[in-house]
């Protein structure tokens, strides 16, 4: 039994406050504290020291913490990649991108963070822009992501003009992220925002469900823009990073700019080549 004149040690006070004592010992300390103002005052000083430290520790960090949406989606996509059967739906592009995955993730996070800041600044937490029939992806979910590749890679004669197939688990993850459940398989195509032809990365931050042909600004029109930008980049008329930025920020605006038209050209709307992966 502790008495008022024996007082508790700092260690006892700390262990008691942190709930690290046995119930029996804790009961003894509680009884002493109820009688001893000196020990309670010392415990208050200790609590103040804890509060000082916690304030110091958390002051700036909590305010700087970016939203979890992007990193969580990235984690889900990486888990989906791991659980996918090896080799299924994996293209030459994806195999080429394996060595630079860490850099891709970093680039993605940078873009995600930038997008989050843009959203925070404009107070725009609206979901996918259904008013535009989903022609433009939600910047929060699909800010675009690129691999660190150079002009030589982009303009090499060996580069495939077909986008790599998107693995099924990743497609499902993209649809889930956009809240699209039980949609017909031909209603959407999972498309790359920045095409791999221009260094676009094969990860969820660069993929979105693009509505099929019933919209004006559909996948075929975007294909035409991608070809145009690729030509301009490889003929030295446009910087690669500018092309990547413009197509990721607003590909419809980029189309209007580079084809000098407000509506898709007839020959582009009627194109037959398809590069995006059906969603279903």
């Amino acid at each position, binding site marked *: 039994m502790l008495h008022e004149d024996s007082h508790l040690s*700092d*260690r006892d006070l*700390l*262990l008691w406050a*942190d709930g*690290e004592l046995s119930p029996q010992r804790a009961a003894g300390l509680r009884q002493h504290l109820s009688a001893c103002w000196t020990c309670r005052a010392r415990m208050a*000083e*200790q609590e*103040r*020291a*804890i509060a*000082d*430290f*916690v304030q*110091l*520790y*958390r*002051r*700036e*960090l*909590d305010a*700087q*913490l*970016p939203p*979890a949406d992007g*990193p*969580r989606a*990235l*984690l*889900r996509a*990486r*888990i*989906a990649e*791991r*659980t996918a059967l090896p080799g299924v739906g994996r293209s030459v592009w994806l195999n080429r991108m394996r060595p630079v995955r*860490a850099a891709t*993730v*970093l680039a993605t*996070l*940078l873009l995600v*963070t930038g997008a989050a800041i843009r959203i925070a600044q404009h107070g725009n937490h609206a979901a996918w822009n259904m008013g535009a029939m989903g022609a433009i992806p939600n910047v929060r979910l699909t800010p675009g992501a690129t691999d660190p590749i150079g002009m030589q890679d982009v303009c090499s004669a060996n580069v495939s003009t077909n986008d790599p197939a998107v693995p099924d688990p990743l497609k499902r993850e993209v649809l889930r992220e956009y809240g699209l459940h039980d949609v017909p398989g031909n209603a959407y195509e999972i498309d790359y925002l920045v095409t791999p032809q221009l260094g676009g990365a094969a990860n969820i931050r660069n993929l979105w469900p693009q509505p099929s042909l019933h919209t004006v600004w559909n996948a075929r029109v975007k294909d035409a823009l991608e070809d145009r930008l690729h030509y301009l980049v490889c003929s030295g008329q446009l910087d690669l990073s500018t092309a990547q930025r413009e197509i990721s920020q607003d590909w419809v605006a980029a189309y209007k700019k580079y084809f000098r038209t407000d509506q898709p050209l007839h020959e582009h709307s009627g194109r037959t080549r398809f590069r995006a992966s059906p969603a279903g």
Partner: protein
Amino acid sequence: MSDTPNDSTLDIRLLAAAARRHSAKPRLEDEIAELFDQWRGSLLRYLSTFGLSQHDGEEVVQEVFLSLFSHLQKGKARTNLRGWLFRVAHNLALKRRDAERKGMGIAADVDSLPHPALNPEEELASNQRQRRLSAILRALPEQDRRCLYLRAEGLRYREVGEVLGMSLGSVAASLERSLARFQRADKR
């Protein structure tokens, strides 16, 4: 005989389906996502104390949860996942920091660690007392600082000890020593 189910058969099927849905285990991916939401902030905060940038911290957190996915997928123990997460994050952060230092030719001097509360802008903006507290924190040995950080993230003494490889008594002694220094800040 018709294949069309009558009402009672349909009811039974619906009930069975509902029961299956009700008893279905959550998918491991969803569980991981929930844990990610729960612990990402704490882990990022702790990782920043190693001097890692926010982007590096995010990448380490991704590695931690991918490891957790593999861990649980193999059917390994689910006890004390919080301690497990911090232990893996701690070890990955140490590796990354050491690799960066080797790459930059910097000696492993723990006391020269950048600390989020100690950047120049903050130093200027802080009042005198906060600067004094910052100086006290900076002067603590790294192990003592880590005990404080982990305890502030809600880890019990046993978990702190597991992350840092210390006994329970050493954790208690470390915390007591550090708090006593903070308490003396106002008595000088």
